[in-house]
């Protein structure tokens, strides 16, 4: 036993929400059958879309690269099962926009045959250079599994001069209903811990903390058991109070270390890297077994589904099949939400695939969600201010966003808003506050882009003007040079010629009549002037 408890800090605001977690933790994680088709969007991550590496009709094995990452912040896509590529086209993706994105469709053969991963396996990772581990993680297509889907390799690569002191594994899973991390910690604690050790090695970090909300005692105990104690091997497992959003990266860092990620900054700025527990398990599989990311645990829950539970899902499996695997819809499915009830986004159809960032499919009935109530005027009650975990003044942000006074909104630190939804949840006037902030942020980004475009256009115009001026000037200079060349350089010759001509003229004049005087004298001058 550890006799000194880990000191915890607290962040401002937050909410005590009903957890609704036990409805999906009754059964162990169920490994879903291979679907007939998988649809793999080329962009399942933050950053540039991947580029297809296969053609229609090509046979692929499970784990084979089918699209390559393009650019630093990008991630490859792998075939999640074996089969034949039948289409490379735009398909509906699970995205708030509801738009279609380029995707690769594989007709599965049901054999789920793995490509050979032995070449990429590094069971003795401790002797491997961090850079090699990073590129393995990159090639394995691993992105943050907490929902944001940021390419993990980028987070494992601190900027030059940055020393990472602490690795934090995020097992808080603060949002109601979601239990995929909980179940993973219960069932695969050893893989998570090994993944954490790989991360620590890749970052050359000193200490590791695992933060778990105290409403998940089974997960906590499973990890402690796998570690041997709650503190061993430089790793410490810490239970944190259950307050939404304690699982927010910045909030968890604050709770565990007392440090605040600087506004507009990254955790690495204060020597911390935070990864989700699911990501750690994927890193373990990628590094030790050489297996890329082809599946993940998804919570299928809510009153709108008959048999809520967690599924191990091949990426690209349609949501429809996940629901079917959980007994189908119950009588009153009102809303289909990817993610949790606070930050998730509503899908308009179940014909979209589960992707790397799909942590939860919440099918809510009318007891769990309501039609948006009519918004009343803000009564300035300040409930939002009390709830805000970023310590913002949501109500002031609302006024400024509403009046499109975006400069003012930025003065009130709009971009420190993490869109956790606490303010909108407590707002007695039912104001869709988060929507206002998203609107303001999007508008500001748009203005920024427009400004950059305008700047570019102006620059181009100015460059053109400058070029024209320069050309004019050079032309004028050339003229001037020529003119002066005519005037000066051959000067002596010309003068001699002129003198000679004059001499001749004088002689002629002297010899003949004086009427031709002057005419021949002017000519050479004129020619020089226009030459």
């Amino acid at each position, binding site marked *: 036993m550890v006799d000194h408890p880990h000191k915890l800090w607290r962040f*401002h605001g937050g909410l005590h929400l009903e957890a609704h977690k036990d409805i999906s933790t009754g059964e162990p994680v169920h490994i879903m059958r291979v679907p007939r088709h998988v649809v793999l969007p080329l962009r399942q991550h933050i950053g540039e879309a991947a580029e297809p590496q296969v053609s229609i009709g090509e046979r692929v094995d499970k784990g084979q690269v089918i699209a390559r990452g393009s650019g630093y912040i990008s991630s490859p896509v792998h075939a999640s099962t074996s089969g034949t590529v039948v289409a490379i086209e735009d398909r509906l993706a699970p995205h708030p926009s509801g738009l279609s994105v380029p995707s690769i469709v594989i007709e599965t053969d049901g054999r789920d045959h793995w490509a050979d991963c032995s070449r990429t396996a590094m069971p003795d990772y401790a002797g491997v250079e961090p850079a090699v581990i990073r590129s393995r993680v990159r090639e394995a297509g691993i992105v943050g599994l907490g929902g944001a889907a940021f390419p993990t390799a980028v987070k494992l690569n601190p900027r030059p001069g940055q020393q990472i002191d602490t690795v934090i594994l995020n097992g808080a899973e603060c949002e109601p209903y979601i239990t995929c991390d909980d179940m993973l910690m219960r069932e695969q604690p050893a893989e998570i811990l090994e993944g954490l050790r790989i991360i620590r090695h890749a970052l050359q970090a000193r200490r590791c903390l695992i933060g778990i909300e105290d409403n998940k005692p089974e997960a906590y105990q499973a990890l402690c058991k796998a570690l041997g104690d709650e503190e061993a091997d430089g790793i410490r497992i810490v239970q944190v109070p259950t307050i939404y959003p304690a699982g927010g990266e910045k909030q968890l860092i604050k709770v565990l270390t007392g440090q605040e990620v600087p506004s507009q900054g990254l955790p690495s700025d204060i020597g911390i890297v935070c990864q989700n527990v699911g990501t750690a398990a994927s890193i373990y599989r990628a590094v030790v077994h050489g297996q890329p990311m082809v599946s993940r645990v998804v919570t299928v829950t809510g009153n709108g589904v008959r048999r809520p539970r967690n599924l191990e899902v091949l990426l690209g499996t349609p949501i429809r099949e996940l629901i079917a695997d959980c007994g189908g819809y119950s009588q009153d499915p009102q809303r289909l939400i990817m993610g949790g009830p606070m930050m*998730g986004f509503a899908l308009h159809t179940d014909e979209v695939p589960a992707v790397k960032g799909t942590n939860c499919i919440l099918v809510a009935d009318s007891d769990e969600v309501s039609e948006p109530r009519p918004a009343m005027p803000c009564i*300035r009650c300040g409930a939002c201010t009390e709830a805000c975990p970023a*310590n*913002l*003044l949501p109500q002031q942000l609302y006024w400024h966003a509403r009046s499109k006074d975006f400069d003012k909104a930025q003065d009130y630190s709009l971009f420190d808003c993490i869109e956790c939804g606490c303010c*909108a*949840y407590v707002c007695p006037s039912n104001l869709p506050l988060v929507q206002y902030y998203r609107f303001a942020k999007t508008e500001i980004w748009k203005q920024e882009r427009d400004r950059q475009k305008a700047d570019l256009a102006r620059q181009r115009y100015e460059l053109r003007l400058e070029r024209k001026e320069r050309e004019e000037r050079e032309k004028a200079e050339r003229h001037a040079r020529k003119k002066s060349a005519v005037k000066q350089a051959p000067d002596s010759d010309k003068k001699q010629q002129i003198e000679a001509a004059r001499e001749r003229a004088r002689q002629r004049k002297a010899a003949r009549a004086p009427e031709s005087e002057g005419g021949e004298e002017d000519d050479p001058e004129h020619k020089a002037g226009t030459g």
Partner: protein
Amino acid sequence: MRFKTVTSPHSIPSHDVAGIMRQVLYALVPGTLAAIWYFGWGILINLIIAVAVAVAAEAAMLAVRGRPVRMYVSDLSAVVTAWLLVLCLPPLVPWWLTLVGVAFAIVVAKHLYGGLGYNPFNPAMVGYVVLLVSFPTYMTQWRPPEMLADTELGLWQSLQIVLTGELPGTMGWDAITMATPLDRVKTGLGMNQTLSEIRASPLFGDFGGRGWEWLGNWFFLGGLWLIYQRVIAWQIPVAVLGSLIATATVFFLANPDSYPSPAFHVFSGGAILGAFFVATDPISASTTPMGRLIYGAGIGVITYVIRAWGGYPDGVAFAVLLMNMAAPLIDQYTQPRVFGQGHRRS
């Protein structure tokens, strides 16, 4: 299968405006019952008139402004305004006085400024001050508390006085009204009496006026319940009463013969009602945590200044209105430090 999409959060919101207003009304009930007990049926009659006028004026203004009438009337904010105004009125004011005050509060102070959420001044206090400066005589005709009243006024008699303005039988106004403790102190000090002489009057109880101090206790309880329910922030009432006590203590210690005790200040007039129910009106108050402390402290100090040296016996209403004016400025300069930022420039 297809679904409707809406933006997050999806959870059913935890609060609504009508719920908040309802809780404020619940919290007012004990104090109001006490007021009826100590000062007679007139309070109840005024309350009925005021609520009726408020709802009618609210509905009319909403209709004129083209707003959804049912949705806004059912938010109960007009009822709260009317209720608070009645608790400031003497029990036997004529019906039209209540009507004028409430109508002014709802029509002018609330709707002409843009309705719920937009009024810079607390409508109840605007209505009260309009009555106070326009009809000072009526506004000082307080009933003595129940234990000091020589004449019993039944429901019927009270109704008659309120509706006709005429006293039943041979009663005179002097017989049924009496100065409030704050009034008595003000006139007594004006006549160069010492406080100990003034306090010899049966009007005074243990802390403030007899009856009045009990009223204060009940409002205090209601206010504590509102804080517990997180309907109001603790900062404002704590700052109002804290600064009132602090200021009163300084002067009381310097000269206890001319300056009443801090306890007297707290348990007299509108101090407790104002601290918990009026100053905490979120729409017209400051909204930042630090701002609320400043805002509340301002109300406490100004209340004291008006009581001690101003022309009116009580100053809560004026203090609230003055600080309402300052609230936007206070908010501007008391923004909290944002997560991850150094101490904010303002």
